[in-house]
């Protein structure tokens, strides 16, 4: 039974984050090869359980599994016994009985990844649980920033938008702070969580006040599906106050980055051509997503799992 999981950034700590980023330099090299595949996790089975929709996260985990030569089992609720009313526990126990080494799970309820180890011996990776955490997104963002700006230590990062509902923001704040960056959360008060006092961050509702001295503007997706609760008066007003327009991008520092976890609402949190802006590393983030997920899987199933055989002897 493994104690190794990536359920939240706290499962890794600074040393775990550093280890995964170091592995990513290797997998980055692998991904540039003519045959971008290594036999590292041959014989391992990885189950992908997505109770919520996803494009890039699911595809990048699947690609990562294949590039490590692991087998992946794909599970989406639309075509499974969950439709017949099977409980989470029964589903996990069923998959577990088939012999999986890792379970990648996305679920609408916060805390699901922490429940899984009760029912399975597999390593658990959180691919997003409710509004709680999304640690591999934070890791790939750290890697992207490190690749583009050298390091995170001392950098000023503004996370802008719907902080309240964002699992990306929660994981990213922890990871950015662990690596020595300072973080400012920017958004209307209605979209700011209540308990940010112990997060170790600054908060503001004045976007324009932070643009000039931020090294990274991290734009969050406006979660349109939640807008019937009227957290903002209108999307147009939100876009005007908190959207990254071309003119706002003009006043950014020379060596700074625009990031977005995707999927993007063009014309809401970013203007329609921001993805193609010279400072934008959004496509970079997607490419690094595969690399980081290779690192995360290898960290759990390769580098980190030590079950020493008696008398085992090797150079």
């Amino acid at each position, binding site marked *: 039974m493994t104690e190794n999981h990536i359920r939240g950034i706290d499962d890794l700590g600074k040393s775990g984050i550093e280890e995964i980023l170091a*592995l990513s*330099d*290797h997998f*980055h*090299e*692998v991904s540039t*090869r*003519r*045959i971008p*595949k*290594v*036999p*590292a*996790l041959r014989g*391992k089975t990885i189950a992908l359980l997505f109770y919520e929709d996803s494009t890039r996260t699911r595809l990048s985990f699947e690609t990562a599994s294949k590039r*490590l030569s692991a087998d992946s089992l794909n599970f989406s609720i639309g075509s499974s016994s969950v439709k017949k009313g099977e409980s989470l526990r029964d589903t996990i126990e069923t998959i577990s009985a088939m012999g999986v080494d890792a379970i990648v799970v996305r679920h609408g309820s916060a805390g699901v990844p922490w429940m899984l180890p009760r029912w399975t011996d597999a390593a658990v990776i959180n691919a997003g649980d409710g509004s709680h955490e999304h640690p591999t997104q934070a890791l790939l963002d750290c890697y992207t920033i490190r690749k583009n700006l050298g390091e995170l230590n001392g950098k000023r990062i503004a996370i802008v938008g719907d902080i309240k509902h964002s699992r990306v923001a929660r994981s990213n704040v922890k990871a950015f702070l662990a690596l020595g960056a300072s973080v400012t959360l920017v958004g209307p008060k209605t979209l700011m969580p209540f308990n940010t006092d112990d997060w170790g961050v600054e908060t503001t509702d004045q976007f324009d006040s932070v643009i000039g001295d931020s090294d990274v503007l991290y734009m969050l997706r406006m979660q349109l599906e939640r807008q019937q609760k009227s957290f903002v008066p209108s999307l147009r007003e939100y876009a005007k106050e908190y959207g990254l327009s071309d003119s706002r991008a003009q006043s950014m520092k020379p060596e700074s980055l625009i990031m977005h976890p995707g999927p993007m609402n063009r014309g809401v949190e970013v203007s329609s051509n921001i993805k193609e802006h010279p400072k934008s590393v959004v496509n970079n983030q997607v490419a690094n997503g595969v690399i980081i997920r290779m690192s995360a899987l*290898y960290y759990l*199933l*390769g*580098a*980190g*799992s*030590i*079950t*020493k*055989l*008696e*008398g*085992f*002897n*090797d*150079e």
Partner: protein
Amino acid sequence: MADLERPNTPLDGGVFHARSEIMNADGVRRALWRMSHEILEQNRGLSELVLVGLEVGGVHLAQKLAENLLEIEKQKVPVGTLDVAFYRDDIGIRQVTPSNPTDMPFDLTSRIVVLVDDVLFTGRTIRAAMDAIVDFGRPAAVQLAVMIDRGHRELPIRPDYVGKNVPTRRDELVDVTENGVLLGVMKDAKP
């Protein structure tokens, strides 16, 4: 279980205690010169030749061999580096952490690849390296150069160029640098 030699992965704790010097700096230098000439003679020149140093211990030896070959033949030989961690057969059995990213900026198809490592022991690293090599193309031939062959092979692998054959105990450890070759053991670090 005794402490083991793991030159291409971080040693998990412990301190290396040298017991004897097998070669001094001059010995290493002379062996590299001889091996350079042997590589040249065996392959009748340097065309199509590529040196690939295995991380970590083989990299500086491969670079040294390339310097020697440049001096002898006035011809540059491409040098790549290879980290075989992801190809090892003991992933999941022990901690396998890569050291430095592979750097192989050329296709190996139809080239003569000389793998360079510091110590040849069980042969499992070389097995992994050969698996890795074919992901970079289909070489015309793969040869093996090592500074120390210490025996205890577990696979049908033999070196083409050897600095020195050294009979060892399994639990001993061989340390190769340009300053010489030491034979010793790992002892637990004092708390």
